[in-house]
């Protein structure tokens, strides 16, 4: 959809105008930009290797060598938090992409074509809703050796049914609307109906779902790493927390600080998601 500057407001311009006035959402956006910037340029600015032992173990925050203290091996916690973002965000983002890609494709096919494709999808989502997601992901990672890719794939594999159901519902709803019937009566091909009519109109809830999926995937990655199922070569927030868990009473900072950053990241994404929801689905705005 192109947005021209002149002429009356397009739905997209209207959505942006609403989003811009939403303070929590802007706050979330700022927070997210900050965190992403930290993970991207942080390691070069703060040149401490997160795996180097820099000081005594379990040193409290405020130390000259380690501003946020050290972990149970004496590694710099701040360096760990800065580098840990990369794995967390990369896995979160790629898992979310996989989830949405898989979910939207399958949901769109099922919703548009119906019939046996649809029945198959419904059965499959039912199947995945029966398996507890984390336990399923644990099984997969356990059997297929942990790596960033395995983790991302397993998260995607357990998460796709939710966006698939949403996409299917949207497609089912929109394909029966009169403007789609009118387009059929004009002789529009399926390709045009899907890409030009249904998808743009199904986009708002899907965009919101995509945002929430990123948050969920980051949380999921955190959980897996916390249990020691992440890539043990890549420092991540969850991994730091999991390794320092036995020492929470001796060194509260080693688990609390990475947790705060993880929480802040997901919170930022959720705030943006809420803001997008208000902006893109104006009918529900009163809620």
């Amino acid at each position, binding site marked *: 959809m192109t947005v021209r500057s002149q002429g009356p407001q397009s739905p997209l311009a209207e959505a942006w105008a609403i989003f811009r006035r939403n303070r929590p959402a802007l706050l979330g956006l700022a927070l997210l930009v900050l965190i992403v910037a930290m993970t991207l340029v942080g390691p070069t600015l703060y040149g401490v290797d997160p795996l180097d032992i820099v000081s005594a173990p379990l040193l409290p925050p405020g130390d000259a060598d380690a501003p946020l203290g050290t972990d149970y091996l004496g590694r710099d916690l701040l360096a760990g938090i800065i580098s840990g973002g990369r794995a967390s965000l990369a896995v979160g983002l790629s898992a979310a992409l996989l989830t949405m890609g898989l979910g939207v494709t399958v949901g769109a096919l099922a919703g548009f074509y119906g019939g046996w494709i649809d029945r198959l999808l419904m059965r499959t989502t039912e199947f995945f809703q029966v398996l507890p997601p984390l336990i399923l992901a*644990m099984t997969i990672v356990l059997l297929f050796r942990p790596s960033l890719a395995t983790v991302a794939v397993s998260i995607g594999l357990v998460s796709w049914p939710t966006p698939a159901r949403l996409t299917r519902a949207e497609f089912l709803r929109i394909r029966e609307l009169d403007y789609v019937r009118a387009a059929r009566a004009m002789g529009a091909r399926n390709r045009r109906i899907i890409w030009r009519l249904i998808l743009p109109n199904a986009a708002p809830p899907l965009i919101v779902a995509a945002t929430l999926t990123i948050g969920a995937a980051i949380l999921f990655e955190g959980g897996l790493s*916390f249990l020691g199922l992440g890539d043990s070569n890549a420092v991540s927030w969850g991994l730091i927390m999991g390794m320092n868990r036995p020492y929470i009473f001796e060194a509260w900072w080693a*688990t609390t600080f990475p947790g705060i950053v993880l929480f802040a990241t997901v919170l930022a994404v959720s705030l943006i998601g809420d803001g997008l929801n208000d902006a893109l689905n104006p009918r529900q705005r009163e809620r």
Partner: protein
Amino acid sequence: MRGGSVLGQLVSACGLLFAVVLFNFVVLHLAPGDVAETLTSATGGATKEILDQVRHLYGLDQPLHVQFLAYLSRLLHGDLGTSAYFNAPVAGLILDRLFPTALLVGTALVLAIVLGAMLGIVAARRPGGIVNSLVSVLSLVGYSAPVFWTGILVLLAFASWLPLFPAQGMVDPRLSGGPIARVIDVLHHLVLPAVTLASVYLAQYSRLARTSMLDALGADYIRTARAKGLGEHTVVYKHALRNAILPIVTVAGVQVSHLLAGAVLVETVFGWPGMGRLAYESILRRDAPLMLGILFCTALLVIVVNMATDLLYRAIDPRIRTQ
């Protein structure tokens, strides 16, 4: 989505269970490396004799479909395989952990639904009030906070700085007392993990309850109820609530699987001796038979709970019942 007869539900439940079994089988065989090695990796490198023994025991030298049928028949006899690390039947290991998990998950669910519904109702009745804002903040924080981090904070706060509750486990081994003292002890241990697990779902249910209550209160039949001259209390707690409860039941049913997954993290943090903690241990030991057994059992649990919610839904929504 719902509908169909109870018999139909039962058939599809069996179908789902079969799919779970098939999935387990396929995943095990798709895993890189030799199946016998995967099954025994928890022993830390098995000898050739042990591997051969395992191959023979599981019939791994047979064609795949024979293996699958054998696997199926073992399952039907309650044999989930043998844990390589514990060197004990998986079924027994899991059964020992069933009660703690059911206690934890059940308590958390009830807590989340009851409190969440209460908050949601109050919020829906006063859209501009404090409770409404509280629900908004709570749902945001509850959704975004990693449950294992919440657990750690709760531990630090209420087991360390303010030592009101025990930090780990389900029972105090030093305790000597009658059954009542034991029950109290378990409940004492239960508070922190249950509250932690409930916090995530409390956030979701309070928001859901608010939405469905707002929907119900805005419905035409509420205007009819008011036009009949019914008091506000009857309108809200009889006419609106009976309808608003329906989506909560649906979502609660769907989320049991998520709740079980969350229990893994919470049980790990609090050392709660449930199935989740067992799953964590099986990962530490790379114990594949145990992990697969847990996946199967949790799926079975979810299927049973889903059927129960379905029956409950039938009981409270006449539109399903009389179709």
